[in-house]
């Protein structure tokens, strides 16, 4: 619906507004010029896997063996799918904190699993509460599939909070698929990888990639890090369905890990300032939102308008040409919220906020007139 309209400002995009840093693009072009156009090993270029291990060690203190415990995938998207397919038996339950990325439930279903969603609340800053997790667990529970920093809420979990989750995971012998694709975008301190918690490495399939941190969505590269058993099972599915991730993307990813740190920092600093601007603007116009701590999304409540999420988004698009995403697209408990991405320029954000404010004022006036007439 949104794609045909002119003059639209989109805060509905789940990817960076920065293009991939030039040195990464340049490295990829160079690799093409040298004729790197072939299949790579199924599990990905050895140099890329080595770089990933180095990165995981440096950032999170993790130890993975590049030859057995890393698999390069076509984005984290593929990794989510094949990880679920490899670990689930028919009927196994997958616990999924919501709101969450759109593919978790469908991929669980396609892998023969039973999604069991756990609602997270604004009051808890959309963190997974140990008691809610405990309550959702049954004898059939097999996997906890979660992502912090979170899309769409911007929630992050700190070490203590993750440790509380880890204790329950251990107690009930669960496996964790931890989608940490936004790990570089944590504005509240350093990201803690779930896999780095005591005893959790064996229980965790760690997923990460290049799409968000390095603004590389179109390159389609991600990876899974896990025990040899799980990676070798995932490799089987991967090798027969995908063969290997695209070589251009892999070459670019090597350059990203080798020399991309400065650019990541630069982009993060921009997001951080825009985050302050948008969260403040939304709160001031009466769309309350907690201060998001990670990723590049804010998740304001629109309950005060009396509209439902879809309605709000449609009207806002029609009247003011601002695109945002209805919260319930990320799970039922997202109803009453909308997701706004601040991966947009300062000017776009400012203009979008102006338009949204105008929209809300008009809505309010109409409500008043309606109330007077009845």
């Amino acid at each position, binding site marked *: 619906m949104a794609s045909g309209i002119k003059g*639209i400002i989109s805060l509905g*995009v*789940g990817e960076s*507004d920065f*293009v991939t840093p030039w040195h990464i693009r340049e490295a990829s072009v160079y690799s093409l010029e040298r004729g790197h156009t072939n299949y790579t090993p199924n599990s990905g270029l050895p140099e890329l896997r080595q770089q990933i291990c180095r990165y995981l060690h440096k950032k999170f203190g993790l130890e993975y063996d590049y030859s057995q415990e890393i698999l390069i995938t076509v984005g984290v998207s593929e990794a989510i799918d094949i990880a679920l397919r490899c670990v689930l038996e028919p009927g196994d339950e997958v616990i999924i904190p919501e709101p969450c990325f*759109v593919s978790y439930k469908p991929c669980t279903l396609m892998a023969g699993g039973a999604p069991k969603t756990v609602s997270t609340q604004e009051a808890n800053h959309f963190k997974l509460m140990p008691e809610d997790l405990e309550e959702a667990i049954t004898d059939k529970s097999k996997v906890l599939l979660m992502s912090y920093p979170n899309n769409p809420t911007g929630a992050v979990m700190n070490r203590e909070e993750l440790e509380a989750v880890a204790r329950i995971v251990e107690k009930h012998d669960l496996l964790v698929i931890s989608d940490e694709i936004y790990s570089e975008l944590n504005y509240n301190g350093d990201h803690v990888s779930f896999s780095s918690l005591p005893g959790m490495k064996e229980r965790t399939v760690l997923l990460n990639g290049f799409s968000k941190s390095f603004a590389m969505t179109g390159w389609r590269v991600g990876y899974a890090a896990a025990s040899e058993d799980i990676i070798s099972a995932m490799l089987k599915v991967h090798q027969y369905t995908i063969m290997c991730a695209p070589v251009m993307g892999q070459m670019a990813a090597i350059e990203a890990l080798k020399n991309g740190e400065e650019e990541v920092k630069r982009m993060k*600093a921009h997001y951080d300032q*825009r985050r*302050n601007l948008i969260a403040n603007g939304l709160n001031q116009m009466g769309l309350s939102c907690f201060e998001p701590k990670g990723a590049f999304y804010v998740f304001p409540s629109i309950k005060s308008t009396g509209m439902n999420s879809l309605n709000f988004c449609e009207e806002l698009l029609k009247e003011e040409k601002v*695109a945002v995403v209805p919260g319930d697209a990320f799970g039922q408990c997202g109803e009453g919220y909308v997701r706004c991405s601040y991966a947009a320029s300062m000017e776009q954000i400012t203009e979008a906020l102006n338009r949204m404010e105008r929209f809300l004022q008009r809505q309010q006036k109409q409500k008043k007139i309606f109330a007077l007439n009845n």
Partner: protein
Amino acid sequence: MDDMKIKLLQALEQNHKISIKTLATMLKISEKEIKEMIEELEEAKIILGYVTLIDWEKTDNNDNVTAIIDVKVTPQRDVGFDTIAQRICRFPEVKSVYLMSGSYDLSVMIEGTSMKKVAFFVAEKLASLENVQSTATHFVLKKYKQDGIVFEEDENDHRLVISP
């Protein structure tokens, strides 16, 4: 200098038209503090000015020419290159002056309304200065990027309007 000042300078360097209010929200400090910091930075001559980058080629007023002159000078006792550099700076035609390492000493950028005028300026005003040994004039034919801004940016937003 504290971190906040650096952040403020970085934001202003990119766009000095940002309002005080927006800056305050972005950096999460009060408007008063922003104002004070800016005043302080201006007074300390850390912020030297607020200029606008214009692509004059797109206007009718587009016959200005720019030249970069490599200047070799004999450094003077005690003051080195400073005195001569400062003298060169005073000419309004001169847009920038840098002391360089390498095969020449000063890189001087000059703007004038015609090639002839620039050439005469170099010959009469620059080359004739005491201590200037030689000059080499290079005329700018086209500007592609200046102060971090690309003149013909063709990287449009190719993203979908909505994506997960």
